[in-house]
C-alpha cells in the first residue's frame, strides 16, 4: 500500500525548482539512478500507450463465437458430419448454411449477431427434458442442419458415453472440433471472443486521466489548506488541522464505497473529485509542517515585512521552495487515486461506461475467467498493465525523492 505518509516535515529542501526546470541536471541525475530511469522510461511508454496507441489500434467490439477463450467446457464446439469435417472448419465456412444451436442458453444469444448479419441461418432446438443435444445431433445426422454450434463439452460426452446402439450408429459419422479457430491474438480473447490487446491499449486512458485529475485536485487542496493553516495560524490553523484529522480518521476506502452507491459516478471527473476529497489530509499535514519551517526563513520574513500579500508569499516565496516535495507527493497521490479507483470498479461500485482495465478485472472475476487456466489473459493483462504503471510512478517518485533530498542521497556512514 503506498499510503504511508511521507514525513519530510521540518527538513530543508534546498535546490528545487531550478533543478526541475533545467533538464540537463535532471537527466544527469536520472542516469545515475537506475531505478529512477526505469520508472521514467516506463512513464514515457505509458504516455505513448494512452495518447498515441489508441489512435492506431481500433477498439475491438466484435463478438466472435469461434475466438472465445472462456473457461474450458464453455468454448465453441463445432459438430459436423464426417464428410464435411474438412469443409467446415471455421465459422466463415458456414456462410449461407443452416446451423443448429440450443435455445435458451447463453450460446443462443451469442449466435444472434451472426444471424442478424446474415452469416448463416440458425435452427434452434429447445433445451428441454435433456433432449436438446440428442435432438440436435439427430437433425445433423439427418441433414436438416449442416453443423451444430455448442458451448459445452457435453456433446463430446454424449457421443462417447451414449448407450443407445441405434443412435450410436446414426451418430457414428459426426465429428467434433474445438480448436481455436482463426488467427491468433497477441493477448488472446475474452469471454466474447474480442481481442484483449485492443482493450488493453484503450483501457488505460480514462483510468490514468482520472487518477491524474484526482491526484492533482488532492494535491491542490492539500497545498492550499496546508499553507493557509501554517501561515494564518490561530483559529484557522486549529480548525483546518482538526478537520484534516477528522477526515483522516474515517477509513477512506469504505467511505468511498458508501459514497459510490450514494452518488452515481458516471462522470470520471466526479469520481476524481470524490477520491481527492478524501485523500488530501495526509499531504495537507505534511505541507503545513513544511510551510511552518519555511516561514521562519529570512526571505519569507522579509516578504511579510514588506507586506507583499499572502498570495504573493505563497505562490512566489514558499511554493517554489517546496516544489519538489509537492511534485513527489503528487505522484504518490496519483498512485493512491489509482488504488481507490480500480478498487471501486473491481467491486462493481462504478457504472460501466468505458471498457477500462478495472472493468476488465471486474468482468474477469464476475464471469469466472479468473479461475480458469485458459482465460488467464483477460485478468492477467490488466493486472500487469496497472501494476507496471504503479511501479513506474513509484520508482520515478522515489528517485526524485533521492535526488532532491541530500540526506537520503549522500549520507555517508561516519567513521567506517
Amino acid at each position, binding site marked *: 500500500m503506498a499510503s*504511508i505518509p511521507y514525513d519530510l516535515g521540518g527538513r530543508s529542501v534546498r535546490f528545487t525548482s531550478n533543478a526541475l526546470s533545467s533538464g540537463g541536471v535532471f537527466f544527469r541525475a536520472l542516469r545515475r539512478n537506475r531505478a529512477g530511469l526505469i520508472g521514467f522510461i516506463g512513464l514515457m511508454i505509458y504516455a505513448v500507450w494512452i495518447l498515441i496507441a489508441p489512435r492506431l489500434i481500433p477498439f475491438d467490439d466484435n463478438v466472435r463465437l469461434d475466438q472465445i477463450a472462456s473457461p474450458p467446457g464453455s468454448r465453441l464446439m463445432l459438430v459436423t458430419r464426417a464428410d464435411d469435417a474438412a469443409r467446415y472448419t471455421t465459422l466463415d465456412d458456414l456462410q449461407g448454411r443452416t446451423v443448429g444451436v440450443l435455445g435458451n442458453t447463453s450460446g443462443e444469444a451469442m449466435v444472434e449477431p451472426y444471424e442478424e448479419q446474415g452469416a448463416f441461418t440458425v435452427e434452434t432446438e429447445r433445451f428441454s427434458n435433456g433432449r436438446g443435444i440428442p435432438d440436435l445431433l439427430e437433425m445433423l445426422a439427418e441433414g436438416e442442419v449442416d453443423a451444430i454450434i455448442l458451448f459445452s463439452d457435453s456433446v463430446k460426452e454424449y457421443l462417447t458415453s451414449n448407450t443407445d446402439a441405434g443412435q450410436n450408429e446414426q451418430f457414428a459419422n459426426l465429428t467434433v472440433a474445438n480448436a481455436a479457430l482463426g488467427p491468433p491474438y497477441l493477448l488472446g480473447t475474452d469471454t466474447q471472443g474480442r481481442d484483449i490487446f485492443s482493450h488493453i491499449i484503450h483501457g488505460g486512458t480514462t483510468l490514468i486521466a482520472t487518477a491524474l485529475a484526482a491526484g492533482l485536485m488532492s494535491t491542490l487542496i492539500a497545498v492550499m489548506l496546508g499553507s493557509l493553516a501554517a501561515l494564518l495560524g490561530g483559529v484557522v490553523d486549529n480548525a483546518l488541522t482538526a478537520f484534516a484529522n477528522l477526515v483522516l*480518521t*474515517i*477509513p477512506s*476506502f469504505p467511505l468511498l464505497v*458508501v459514497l459510490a452507491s450514494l452518488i452515481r459516478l458516471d462522470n470520471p471527473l466526479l469520481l476524481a473529485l470524490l477520491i481527492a476529497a478524501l485523500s488530501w489530509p495526509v499531504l495537507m499535514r505534511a505541507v503545513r509542517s513544511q510551510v511552518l519551517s519555511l516561514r521562519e526563513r529570512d526571505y519569507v520574513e522579509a516578504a511579510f515585512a514588506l507586506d507583499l500579500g499572502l498570495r504573493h508569499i505563497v505562490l512566489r516565496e514558499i511554493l517554489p521552495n517546496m516544489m519538489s516535495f509537492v511534485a513527489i507527493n503528487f505522484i504518490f497521490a496519483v498512485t493512491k487515486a489509482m488504488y481507490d479507483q480500480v478498487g471501486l470498479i473491481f467491486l462493481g461500485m462504478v457504472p460501466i461506461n468505458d471498457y477500462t482495465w478495472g472493468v476488465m478485472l471486474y468482468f474477469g472475476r464476475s464471469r469466472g475467467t479468473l*479461475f480458469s487456466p485458459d482465460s*488467464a489473459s483477460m485478468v492477467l493483462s490488466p493486472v500487469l498493465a*496497472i501494476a507496471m504503471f504503479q*511501479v513506474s510512478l513509484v520508482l520515478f517518485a522515489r528517485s526524485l525523492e533521492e535526488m532532491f533530498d541530500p540526506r537520503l542521497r549522500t549520507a555517508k556512514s561516519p567513521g567506517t
Partner: protein
Amino acid sequence: MATESPAVPSGPAAPSFPIARHAFRRFYTNYTARTVLQAIVTIWAVITFTFFLIRLMPGNPVEVYVDFLVNQQNMTYDEAYSRAASQFRFDPNVSLVTQYVEYMGQLLRGDLGLSITSSGTRVIDQIARFLPWTIFSVGLGLLISFTLGVILGTIMAYKRNTAIDHALSFLASVLSAVPNYIWGLFIILVLGVQLNLFSVGGLRGNYDPSLQPGFTLEFIGSVLKHAFLPVLIYVIGSIGGWMLNMRNSTVSTLGEDYVNVARARGLTSSRILLAYVGRNAALPMFTLLAINIGFIIGGSVIIEELFVYKGIGSFLFWSITQRDYTSMQGVFLIITISVVVSNLLADLLYSRLDPRVRVSGGK
C-alpha cells in the same frame, strides 16, 4: 495526532465566568485529558457524519425488498410494502432527526441496535462474529510485515548504497507500488490457477466448514490455511513501506552525534545497534503503525471480497449492498473507534518510549 500545536486556542472572552473558563483551560491543557476529549469528539463527529450520509443513500432497505417482492413474487406494491415493513424493523417515514436522537440514545446505552435486513439479529452479534477474523488476519499480517520490514530496513540502512540496499529498495518500491488486491489477483492467477499450488475454491471462507470449531489441531490448521492468502497479501502490500521508512529513519539516526560518540567510546556494534540506533530509528514506526491499522481495515474490504474471507470488510460490503443502515453504521463505528484508539495508543506509547516527548508534554 496532537503532538504539536503549542498554541492552545483561547476560549471566547467571557468575563462573567472566570472560574469556569479557568477550569476549562486547566482541563484542556492537561495532555491526556485533551487527547481523550479529542478522541471522543472525533468519534461523535464520525458517527453523526456517517449516520446522515448513510441514510441519504438512495434506496432504503424496505424499497430494495419491495422491489424484490414485486419483481420476483408478483405482489402488488401495497402488499409488498406492508410485508416488507412488518419484516424489517425500519420505518422510512420517521424523520431523520428522530431516528438520529433514537440512535444516539441507544448508543449511549451501549446498544448498536438490530440488523435491519436479517431480522432478530443484533448488530453487535454480527460484528462480534466477523470482527475477530479481520483482527486475526490483519493483525497477523501487520505483525509479520512490521517485524520483517523493520529488520530489513535496518539492514538496508547499514548497507546503504551497496548492491543489497539497491536491490531491497527496488523490491520495496515494487511491493508497495502495486495495489494489494492486484497482488491478490496475481497470486490467484499465477500460483493458484496456472501452477496449481493451491485450490482457490477450497480456500474460501474462514475454515473448512466440515470441521467443528474448537481448539483441535485440525481446526487451527484449517484456520491458518484459510487465512494464509489474505495474510500474505497484507504482508506483501505493506512490507515495502516499512522497509523504506525504517531505512530512511535509520540512515538519519546513524548520522546523529550520539551514535558517533557511542562509537568513539568503543561500544560494541550490537549494543550501538540495539540501544542507540534501533530504538531511536524505530520510534516513528510506531506512529505509522497506528495510522496503518485504519488503512488496512479499510483495505480489507476488497481483500476479503476477493478471497471470500468472512471478516468485517466483507460484512461491511454486504451491508452496503443491502442498505442495512444499522449494520453499516455499526461497522463504521467499530472501524472509527479502532482508528481513534490506535492513534491514542500510539501517542501514549510514543511518550513512554521517547522521554523527550514525555518531558515536553508534561510542561
